[in-house]
């Protein structure tokens, strides 16, 4: 499986910053400028054909300089291999190129990442909140600095007084 990461490294010299193989999973961290090109290459390259998008996720590392990590898990139905494509973004400029034009399914998945972690996607056709309400203004719930109980928004709801029985 290491030939997979080697092939990415050969085609895009200097784009891979980290390759990890653990428990049979290959995770390649790439520079975010190269993410879109590498995604396109992985889908179109005849030897790889990563035509299936599994999920898009994000991880928050508050202590790191580049705080957020965007994770794309893709699969090749033809060659039956899996790869995890990751990229890091700093908090001050958290925007990544959207991969919606490569895999259509990335649309909803990226919207979820935006909703939960606040990472924006360039060229995304419809970047809105998806699970939280549109008018939700407390921030992004899956960030590590967001408390589990929320920031008090749900305590502001008015309750109807039940008539005494």
């Amino acid at each position, binding site marked *: 499986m290491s030939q997979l990461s080697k092939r990415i490294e050969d085609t895009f010299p200097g784009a891979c910053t980290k390759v990890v193989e*653990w*428990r049979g*999973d290959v*995770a390649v961290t790439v520079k975010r400028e190269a993410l879109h090109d590498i995604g396109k290459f992985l889908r179109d390259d005849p030897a790889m054909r990563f*035509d*299936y*998008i*599994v*999920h898009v*996720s994000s*991880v*928050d590392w508050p202590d790191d300089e580049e705080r957020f990590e965007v*994770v794309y*898990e893709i699969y090749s*139905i033809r060659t*039956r291999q*899996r790869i*995890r494509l990751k990229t890091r973004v700093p908090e001050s400029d958290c925007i990544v190129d959207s991969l919606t034009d490569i*895999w*259509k*399914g990335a*649309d*909803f*998945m990226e919207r*979820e990442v935006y909703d*939960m972690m606040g990472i924006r996607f360039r060229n995304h056709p419809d970047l809105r*909140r*998806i*699970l*939280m*309400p549109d008018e939700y203004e407390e921030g992004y*719930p*899956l960030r590590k600095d*967001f408390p*589990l109980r929320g920031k008090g928004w749900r305590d502001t709801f008015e309750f109807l007084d039940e008539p005494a029985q």
Partner: protein
Amino acid sequence: MAQFEDQRTTVYKVDPEHPEDATLPTLRTEELLLNMGPQHPSTHGVLKVILELEGERLVKSTPVMGFLHRGVEKLAEEGTYHQFIPHTDRLDYVCAMYNNFAYCRAVEKLMNITVPDRAEYLRTIVAEIQRIIGHQFWLGTQALDIGAMTVFFYCFRDREILLDWFDELCGARLTTSWYRIGGVERDFTPSLFAKLNQFLDYFPPKIDEYVIFLEKNRIWLARTKGVAVISAEDALSFGLSGPTLRGSGVDYDLRKYEPYSAYPKCEFSVPVGKNGDTYDRYWIRVQEIYESVKIIRQCLEQIQDGPIMADVPSVTLPPKERVFTNLESMIQQFKLFSQGFNAPPGEIYCGTEAHKGELGFYIVSTGGGKPYRLKIRAPSFIHMGAFDHMSKGYMIADAVTIFGTYDIVMGECDR
């Protein structure tokens, strides 16, 4: 007496001598925006879809989700790995066993635990029973949405037998939590084996019964054949999985592609459709019920005596009867539930073929007893991403069929 001119029945008189002089009013047409849901019986939960209509044709549909969002992924970061198992029941509350299974498999991959043989067989049997229940539930509700009510009663009659069987197995019918990390909670009793064998003799003719109602039903065929067609290429690009993907002719089943549990030891086939329409997806699900029966039969033949829990005391729970009688086991149980086990730093993704599609868990661990980040790849959520594409150009009544064909459950979709 006042006279009212009825706008709808205004008669425009045309001079027969000079019909070209008449000016007929032109009909005003505009796109209609229709809100479907959140409270609509066919949305299988609380889902709103904004439909843009041109006449009765769907031009664009925008799903609005999140009415059932409970922040399960955030909750996972606050509890230990064991404590998250009951939360997974509430994802896809129709098929809790398979969620438990998928989650336990992911943690086992993280901890590198091998599950003993007997436990693998027990897991496979229960998972396939859950698949049958899921498909029965789907068939019943899908037929009900389309208007065939009898199938619903037949499916639910047989589903009830299996739910009672679950009740005897673990004390719950729907939110079961029977799987454990490293094995299962308890073994089958002889009575459960007997009941299961009895059911396997009783059940296959009943599947034919469901099908009789539908296969020659003209309404069913008209409402499913050629509806919501999606090509294999698009289905892959959207990340569809399970019967929804196989209906388009892609032979992607994780039970075959990445064999796990006792599946590699059983012989079964994966039905694949041709046309990618709602009918093919229905046909696949019915065939899968037959295959599940076959898998359960083979597991029951092959199963041997042995332990039902992996012997890794630092991770797996001690048997319940030892907790009450043995001090060390009680300490082990207490420590596992109060602090959790120490997971190695790293990250894994583990996908499992649930009856709706690929249910995956992506876990990031930084060591310690709690997951640092846990992401659930819910098939219902990803299928909804293709809703606009698949509904375009079909009639408004087909929107109901398309929800059904994904087999969506909003608990899993919104998490």
